[in-house]
């Protein structure tokens, strides 16, 4: 039984989510968590996950998806950062499921709650350390846990019976069909029968084979015969050939022998405890997987509620083929900004269909970085099957999102600033592939404009030539205008709008890059009494206000 709500065929790595959620819970509580053996917090995440989280303010988005649920947080983080590559069908599969979730949120949250309850109220008696030595207590714990799970399975079946007709997507229909098929009444009574038999009221019965050192090996547990006395069986046994039997009884004062005999009985009980314990693990894992896959959609519901409160639009993006080079949006909001401001933000529209190079210039505090981040987030959200915060959005899947942002001076003083930037860029180049999305935010500005522009020109030209889509926010006029002068068909130039009186609209308009004329500003600041004086101090103040 598989939930299959994130992918029609593949499993989600729900065990990773379990480990990650446990670590996050411990960290938030200021406790030290002992890491689950073999848990790798970076498993499956792209190498630049930390940079993406920081540069795109991803945590603001994740906090809105998971206000109080570490599990939802980690699942969403993983899915957003991993993304689906080159598989439109899976994205559409998720979009359909999400559409159902948005129309029946109450039922989805109820199923999620059953999975959470099952996971959190399970008896731990069959897992504890002590039970490793005492299979009988492990078996009792497993029976109790299984009885508990049985209750949750029945509840799941009831929800399926009540709500299945309201769901229309392929994923949900398959899920409910599976519950009806695999969790029928006959199955439930079979389970109850086992739980009774495993109490071994009639003694333990097993067989073994002579193995290493002539000790027993290959132990097999047998179901003890029902010890109901019947006349016919008794009568038959009187005349049957009695097979040879060797019998012995423990001496009442032989304590070592009593221990040894318990060890023998435990051979049988251990097998039963293993089988039922393993079975309980399977049922727990089923709920674990269900919880993890639903966590993503519950996160989407939470985010949808938050965005609705701030008047931000949401839509399921339209997906185009990978190499169609489509990218257009109407009323695209930066989710991170919308969430942190707590009010409606200005949406941007752009049509970059067929464009491989998008250069964004313009005055400070004009919404350049916000647009870049909004677009990067929208790409990640689209690529994970989520809705995006826009009135309309059309794009194609990319081969990974990469960010190269201006950073603080390297604290270790090991490398100069430009050296550090170039080192980071080189590392990115190591991971780039055609159809990657590369976001530059004021890169290569750690040297003078002429040199910075030249380095950036060479790097960007090469990337575009190798089919990497480049979005570049820059103050390097020589760089921006250099590309503009080339008259490239596949380049789009956007400029933060600034009205004649200096007001920013936070809208981006298409147009030729304008010289920022730093020298002129400076000249004016000093000679013409500061017309635009606070512009420089306030640099980025708007976009980074959090």
């Amino acid at each position, binding site marked *: *039984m598989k939930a299959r709500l994130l992918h029609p065929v593949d*499993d989600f790595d729900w065990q990773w989510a379990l480990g990650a959620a446990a670590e996050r819970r411990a960290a938030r509580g200021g406790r030290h968590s002992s890491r689950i053996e073999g848990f790798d917090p970076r498993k499956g995440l792209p190498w630049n996950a930390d940079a993406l989280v920081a540069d795109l303010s991803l945590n603001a988005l994740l906090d809105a998806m998971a206000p109080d649920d570490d599990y939802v947080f980690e699942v969403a983080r993983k899915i957003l950062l991993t993304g689906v590559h080159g598989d439109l069908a899976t994205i559409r599969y998720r979009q359909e499921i999400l559409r159902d979730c948005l129309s029946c949120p109450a039922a989805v949250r109820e199923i999620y709650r059953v999975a959470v309850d099952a996971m959190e109220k399970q008896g731990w008696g069959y897992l504890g350390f002590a039970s490793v030595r005492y299979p009988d207590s492990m078996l009792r714990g497993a029976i109790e846990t299984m009885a508990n799970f049985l209750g949750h399975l029945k509840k799941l079946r009831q929800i399926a019976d009540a709500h299945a007709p309201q769901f229309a997507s392929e994923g949900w229909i398959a899920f409910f069909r599976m519950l009806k098929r695999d969790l029928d009444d006959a199955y439930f009574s079979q*389970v109850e029968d086992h739980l009774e038999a495993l109490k071994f009221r*009639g*003694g333990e*019965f*097993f*067989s*073994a*084979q*002579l*193995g290493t*050192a*002539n*000790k027993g090996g290959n132990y*097999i*547990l*047998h*179901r003890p015969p029902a010890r109901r006395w019947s006349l016919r069986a008794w009568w038959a046994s009187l005349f049957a050939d009695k097979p*040879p039997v*060797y*019998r*012995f*009884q*423990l001496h009442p004062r032989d304590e070592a*022998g009593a221990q*040894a*005999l318990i*060890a*023998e*009985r435990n051979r*049988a009980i*251990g*097998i*039963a405890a*293993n*089988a*039922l314990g393993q*079975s309980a*693990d*399977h049922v727990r*894992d*089923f709920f*674990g*997987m269900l919880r993890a896959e639903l966590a993503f959609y519950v996160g989407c519901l939470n985010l949808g509620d938050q965005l609705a409160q701030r008047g931000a639009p949401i839509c399921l993006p339209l997906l185009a083929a990978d190499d169609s080079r489509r990218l257009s949006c109407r009323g695209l909001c930066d989710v991170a900004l919308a969430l942190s401001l707590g009010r409606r933000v200005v949406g941007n529209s752009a049509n970059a269909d067929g464009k491989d190079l998008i250069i964004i210039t313009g005055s400070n505090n004009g919404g350049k970085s916000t647009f870049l981040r909004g677009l990067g987030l929208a790409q990640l959200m689209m690529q994970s099957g989520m809705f995006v915060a826009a009135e309309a959005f059309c794009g194609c899947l990319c081969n990974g999102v990469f960010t190269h942002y201006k950073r603080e001076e390297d604290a270790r003083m090991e490398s100069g600033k*430009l*050296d550090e930037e*170039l*080192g980071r860029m*080189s590392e990115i*180049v190591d991971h780039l592939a*055609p159809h990657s999305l590369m976001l530059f935010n004021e890169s290569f500005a750690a040297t003078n404009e002429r040199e910075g522009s*030249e380095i950036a020109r*060479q*790097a960007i*030209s*090469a*990337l575009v030539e*190798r089919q*990497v889509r480049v979005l570049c926010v820059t103050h390097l006029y020589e760089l921006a205008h250099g590309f503009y002068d080339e008259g490239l068909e596949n380049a789009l130039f956007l400029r933060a709008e600034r009205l004649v009186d200096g007001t920013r609209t936070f809208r981006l308009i298409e147009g030729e890059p304008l010289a920022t004329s730093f020298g002129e500003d400076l000249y004016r600041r000093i000679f013409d009494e500061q017309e635009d004086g606070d512009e420089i101090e306030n640099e980025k103040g708007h976009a980074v206000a959090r």
Partner: protein
Amino acid sequence: MNSCSILFRDATDRVPDDRCEPPDFFGDLNLGQIVAAVAAGKEEYNLKPFFYAALRDVDCIRFRHEVMQDLEDARLLAALRDFALGMRAVRDSLARLEKHPYVHQKEYWFLETLARYGEVVARLSSDLSAAGCRSRGFRAFSAHLMQYASSATFASLVDEAKRLKAELSAIRYSVVIRGSRVEVHRYGESPDYGGEVAATFARFQQGAAQERRFKFSNATEMNHIEAQILDGVVQLHRETFAKLGDFYAARREFFDAAIVAFDREVQFYIAYLDYIAPLKKAGLAFCCPRVDRSDKEVHGEQVFDLALAVKLVEKGAAPVCNDFHLKGRERIIVVSGPNQGGKTTFARTFGQLHYLGGLGLPVPGAKAQLHLFDRIFTHFEREEQTSNLRGKLEDDVVRIHAILQAATPHSVIIVNEIFASTTLRDALFLGRTIAAAMIRLDVLCVWVTFLDELSALGEQTVSMVSTVVLGNPAQRTFKIVRQAADGLAYAMSLAEKHRLTYAVILGRLQP
């Protein structure tokens, strides 16, 4: 049964096994380190005595070279390793067997051990015949082994053990425990209930689950309840256990002495080959040298210090190789030149080559011709010893005197920086006198010294010098060469560094 030893041509070449003390020069030449590392992990074979006794006869050396040439066949070497592991397992198993208090368990382990021994012997026999060895050593042993492996005694031993074991492992029995009462039955078909439970819940499995396994002790010992259950099984299967008891009583001494000896002796070669394997992999050459008693012309090409090379290769570095030769009446190599330049290493190399050559082993170098020495003497600088109350100079003279007394024309002497604790005049005087005595003795010698003058005492002495990099006297090359001692050597560029220029990025993102 020593007629087919893999180490010695015949019993007369054999050195006594009880020689456990290394020769005096082992420490100075770092041979102690080498032998310790070679023998490490092979303590059970007691290999060190073999390394403490150099051979005295050229044909004995050739005998070992032949074996070494056979061992160049990787399949043969692998087969011998398997054999060694197998024999070790057999020995360990016999030792463990004795510890079991229950006789039916002992008997079981005996069967296991025999089965293993049978496999090991049969396997070696077929591997050796497939290898087509040419050395006298391997041919003699192979002949013995074929004969043993095809003997009726060996066949019955192995077959009977196999049959008994198969009979035992076919026995299945049932146990019913009700409170303190236990019944043991012959097994009657009954379904696997654990499997039934697991099958009921298998539908919930989410991929590979961590397997839950109640850990039963794997100890092969039994407690008395288990023994009682086994007694029950014995009662139900009397014939099988009777045969088992008879077999154990009759076949306890089963080892063949020649195979046991071979198992130990062949490790002499394998241990050395294992030790030099990383060096060969790093591209360093080894060769079987020509060794001669009558000739004192010696030479070596691309030779190096084995102990040092092992350390360097571990760190990913490579040793510097050197060449040397002595022709005609040349006997003494006088090594001078800047310190830390590899002089002592060179002297050790010379000594190691001779000693390893005398053991019949391949030596570190591409090509070598060596003298079959009777003894090797070393005189290296020692810490001042307060116990003998002699000054350092005096100690030096006493030691060199003892060496000259004991040395013969067939000896090899390595002298390293002596007479450093006196005036130059004294040192020169002593040096010349001792060199003259060596020349008279016609002994082979490498002498590391700061006294340039010693290198030009006559046609018997040859000067070799440690060298430095031209134009940078602080940097050593570690090359020792034959020559007269002379007593004396940033915006676009950053982008290029990070491989971020246009053309380079295009190349890096090559589709």
